[in-house]
């Protein structure tokens, strides 16, 4: 049957999102693989010599050696613990202050101005001061990372909380929910996307702060490994450590995205109606 009608057209709805997962994965892998290939080409052809940057195959070999003799696992354990503790400390502080400042008028008046003022201080400038205050042991390092992580979390959470649909909040209030219940049942779930945005920024900063913190008199960790490699001009170890920092950040981000999916099931079934 011919259904052509003069002057009429078939509507052109947006294509349902979603490529085959395998294709998506392949497309995502293209960029990193090209970079790896370029690195290999540059070192293998001699454009980059060993004293400037070691090739990927050398870095892989070094990774095997350091892993086998136990230096690398130990360094990773120490560094990841530092970054993790600092992140937990800073993110929970930022979350708490953000909710308080975003949700209550009094909270905003009390908290926001000081947070905005403190936020203007570059945390890197605090490194030496923290050593004086908290010593050269772990405490000063973890606190420095914590401070760095607090602010991105605070800014995102407080704006996310402020942007929660007031109509829904009002409805919940009219059904007799108290402030705490509203914060828990309505505001936090509503602000979750911002919470995760803040968390992802904080994670990135925690690795950056980790590097700064490990400049302070270290005897263990990735920073220690790097300091020693610098002394011996071991570009393979340096490249390896740089890569490891990146991998740590990447893994943390992946984990967060996974948690994001699990904790916000209503966003997966999203459709505009």
């Amino acid at each position, binding site marked *: 049957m*011919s259904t052509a*009608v003069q*002057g*009429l057209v078939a*509507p052109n*709805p*947006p*294509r349902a999102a979603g490529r085959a997962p395998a294709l998506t994965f392949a497309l995502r892998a293209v960029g990193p693989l090209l970079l790896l290939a370029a690195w290999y080409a540059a070192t293998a052809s001699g454009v980059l010599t060993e004293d400037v940057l070691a090739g990927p195959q050398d870095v892989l070999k070094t990774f095997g050696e350091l892993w086998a003799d136990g230096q690398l696992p130990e360094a990773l354990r120490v560094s990841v613990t530092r970054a993790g503790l600092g992140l937990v400390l800073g993110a929970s502080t930022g979350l708490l202050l953000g909710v308080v400042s975003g949700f209550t008028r009094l909270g905003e008046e009390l908290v926001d101005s000081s947070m905005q003022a403190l936020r203007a201080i570059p945390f890197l400038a605090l490194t030496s001061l923290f050593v004086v205050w908290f010593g050269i042991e772990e405490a000063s390092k973890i606190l420095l990372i914590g401070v760095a992580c607090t602010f991105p979390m605070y800014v995102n959470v407080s704006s996310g909380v402020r942007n929660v649909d007031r109509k829904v909040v009002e409805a919940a209030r009219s059904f007799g929910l108290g402030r705490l219940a509203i914060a828990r049942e309505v505001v936090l779930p509503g602000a979750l996307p911002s919470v995760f945005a803040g968390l992802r920024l904080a994670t990135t900063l925690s690795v950056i702060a980790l590097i700064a913190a490990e400049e302070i008199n270290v005897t263990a960790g990735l920073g220690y490994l790097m300091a020693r490699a610098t002394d011996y001009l071991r570009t393979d170890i340096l490249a390896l450590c740089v890569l490891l920092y990146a991998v740590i950040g990447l893994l943390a981000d992946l984990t967060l995205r996974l948690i994001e999916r699990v904790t916000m099931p209503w966003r997966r079934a999203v459709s*505009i109606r």
Partner: protein
Amino acid sequence: MSPEVSAESAGLAVRTRGLRKVFGERAVLDGVDLDVRRGEFLALLGASGTGKTTLLRILAGLDAATGGTVLVPPVRTVVFQEPRLIPSKRALANVVIGQGRSARAKGLAALAEVGLSRHADAWPATLSGGEAQRVALARALVREPELLLLDEPFAALDALTRLHMQDLIAELCARHRPAVVLVTHDVEEAILLADRIAVLREGRFVTDLQVGIDRPRDRTDPVFVELRRRLLADLGVDSHAGTPREEVAR
């Protein structure tokens, strides 16, 4: 294609054949054949969840059908149940959005038609529900659509505003003569406004009839009352037993 068929189909604004839409396992629309003539006003009735919005969104080109063919005019506009104005733009800017600078005069004229000339510079958040919905209507009309799709545009309004809006729609549609598909729960509204009424149930039309009452229509006209009784029965509301919602609401 035979000559009669093309002659008959030349005056069409909508044609669907075997239209299907499946969500998961369930076929919400299961072989819908619908023709709407140019300038015709079709009211679409159906119980909640029968797929009226789904059908409308497919006609609007917002969702894809699972199967079947759909033909619609190139220029079609939608008024949704809620106004969906852009909060960061004033009323007039919302009406002429995407239309270029020259559309200002047309936008003002459209706002005047819906009785909102004085609110051209208002922010959407400061408009009442009925006013915001009228801005949405002006936004749909200013594009001079060949097909106007209305998804329960009065559902969120109070009874009085709703009566005004119904008159307004009737008047504007009579003036501009787009083909109209109006989704509604309100049987009286359908009989008041439409040339033709279709009832959707279990993925198909169970009723499709012309409203042969002269305008202006009178709710107390016996033909009106009889038609109303029949449509309520098609909707599964038994007007003899118990108190159907439609009765209670009035």
